[in-house]
């Protein structure tokens, strides 16, 4: 499939700070592509360049065959943006928010009205049509942001951490809708810190850290390559490492100590578990490896602020 977004040696600097440090990637038409990374990794800076609200410092960025540029109205016309922050017009009602926004895309009034009716149904907000923004819950506001992003029937949808601060019900509804959009043929670009979200939605992801791309690939494949199939966590003080290490190492393909926990990465945790029982250990857990393990392994388990 041909790429809808192609970046080469993309750099973004804010004064002295390098937010994006020479990254290259391609996003294919019709896929869901995720940018994962801790705070300050450069995810938002990257997608802001993609949807043309932030100028590139250097490198090239082609979107839908056109160079991304802040004055590129043609690209903004085909892009829908679900922002990280809730940027709704609090002076307006739900309906007014949408009708005013439709104006910005030159959508004729009659057409806008039909689209708004459909979209309010899509995000399950029909009953809130006349409500003021202050009267909506966070989940409703996020859904309205999605409806707003879809007014121009975008070919490319950019969602920046779309489920931040939502309860599980609201989160799952948003995931449903985003998958539905992808199935309808839109290309989806997502940034997230929630690995579950990436696993639920993304065909491919890149893991970013300090402005660079550390890994790129299909989530399940990344997990298998970096971690293996299973993880065994043992809660045990560091002093006792020596005693047990020699017994356990033969069964794992990698291990890591973080604070009070030892992590063993294995293709099959069975043997290691058997050994743990033999050793009469108690505080342990065997679970499937996840994208979160990859993420933490690559970006470090220390706090990033």
């Amino acid at each position, binding site marked *: 499939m041909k790429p809808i977004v192609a970046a080469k040696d993309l750099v973004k600097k804010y004064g002295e700070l390098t937010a994006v440090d020479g990254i290259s990637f391609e996003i294919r038409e019709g896929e869901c592509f995720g940018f994962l990374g801790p705070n300050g990794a450069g995810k938002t800076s990257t997608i802001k360049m993609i949807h043309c*609200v932030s100028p590139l410092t250097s490198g090239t960025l082609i979107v839908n065959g056109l160079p991304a540029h802040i004055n590129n109205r043609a690209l903004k*016309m085909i892009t829908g943006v679900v922002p990280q922050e809730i940027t709704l017009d609090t002076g*307006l009602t739900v309906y007014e928010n949408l009708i005013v926004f439709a104006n910005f895309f030159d959508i004729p009034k009659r057409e806008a009205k039909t689209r708004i009716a459909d979209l309010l149904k899509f995000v399950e907000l029909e009953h809130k049509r006349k409500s003021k923004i202050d009267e909506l819950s966070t989940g409703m506001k996020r859904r309205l942001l999605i409806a707003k992003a879809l007014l*121009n029937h975008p070919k490319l949808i950019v969602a920046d951490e779309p489920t931040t601060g939502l309860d599980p019900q609201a989160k799952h509804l948003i995931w449903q809708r985003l998958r539905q959009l992808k199935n309808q043929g839109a290309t989806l670009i997502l940034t997230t810190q929630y690995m579950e979200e990436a696993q639920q939605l993304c065909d491919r992801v890149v893991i970013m850290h300090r402005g660079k791309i550390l890994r790129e690939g299909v989530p399940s494949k990344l997990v298998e390559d970096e971690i293996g199939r299973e993880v065994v966590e043992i809660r045990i003080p560091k002093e006792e490492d020596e005693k047990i290490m020699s017994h356990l190492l033969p069964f794992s393909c990698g291990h890591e100590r973080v604070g009070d926990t030892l992590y063993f990465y294995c293709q099959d945790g069975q043997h290691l578990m058997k050994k743990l029982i033999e050793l009469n250990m108690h505080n342990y857990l065997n679970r499937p490896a996840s994208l979160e393990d990859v993420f933490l392994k690559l970006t470090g388990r220390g706090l990033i602020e």
Partner: protein
Amino acid sequence: MNLSYRVYYVFIRNLVSYKRFVVPTFLVSLIEPLFYLITFGIGMGAYLGYFGGKPYLFFLVPGVLVSSVMLSSTFECLYGTFVKIVHEKLYDSIIATPVSAEDAIAGDIAWATFRGLVSGTLMFIVAAFMGVLPASMPSVLLLLVLMVFVGVLFGSMAMIVTSFAPNFDFFNYYTELVIMPMLFFSGVFFPLDKFPGWMKTFSSFIPLTHAVNISRAVFSGVYRPGLIFSFLFIFTLEVIVFYISLKLMKKRLIK
């Protein structure tokens, strides 16, 4: 510079949002001029006798009218715009659409100008009820043009301040140190003839002085050739300030 017809859409956004505030702002726009005209015009005017053969109120109205346009457009581009950029991040979502940053900023200046026009018009109506009217009907048109000029000029100036204001409190510097003194140095409340030479020179650099001169001519019907200079002064300054305000504000919006 990336301006387009989409300025109009931003204006419409403001108009739709304004619906909720129409009644309070109309009341303020009505009460404020009444307050000026009654206290200064009637109260103080009683002591002042006649100015150029007419009661003081006739002197006062043209100046207070353009100042009310100035104040309305100034406050709209200070507080109104600041809320939209910082508190509501509204501009962030607007510039992600085909509406450019310049469109959005110019749309707000256009809106501020409209607010100024509303204030000026209400003042005009109040003054008319008090018997103060322009010299002729065609001069009303000139007054309208002047109000638009004043609105764009002071809206753009306020926009420049907003482009680097860290918070609301910062606006006090501008309103107290620039806008308020301007009211007293521009001949709104009294003629400038008695000012010493250097103060007169200072006054002649204040845009409001020129606006007041034109407005007064509209009401008196006496047009001196110096008014053409006043018009050119306002117009030139306005073009420059408008351009700078778009540049600076864009810098704040796009990083």
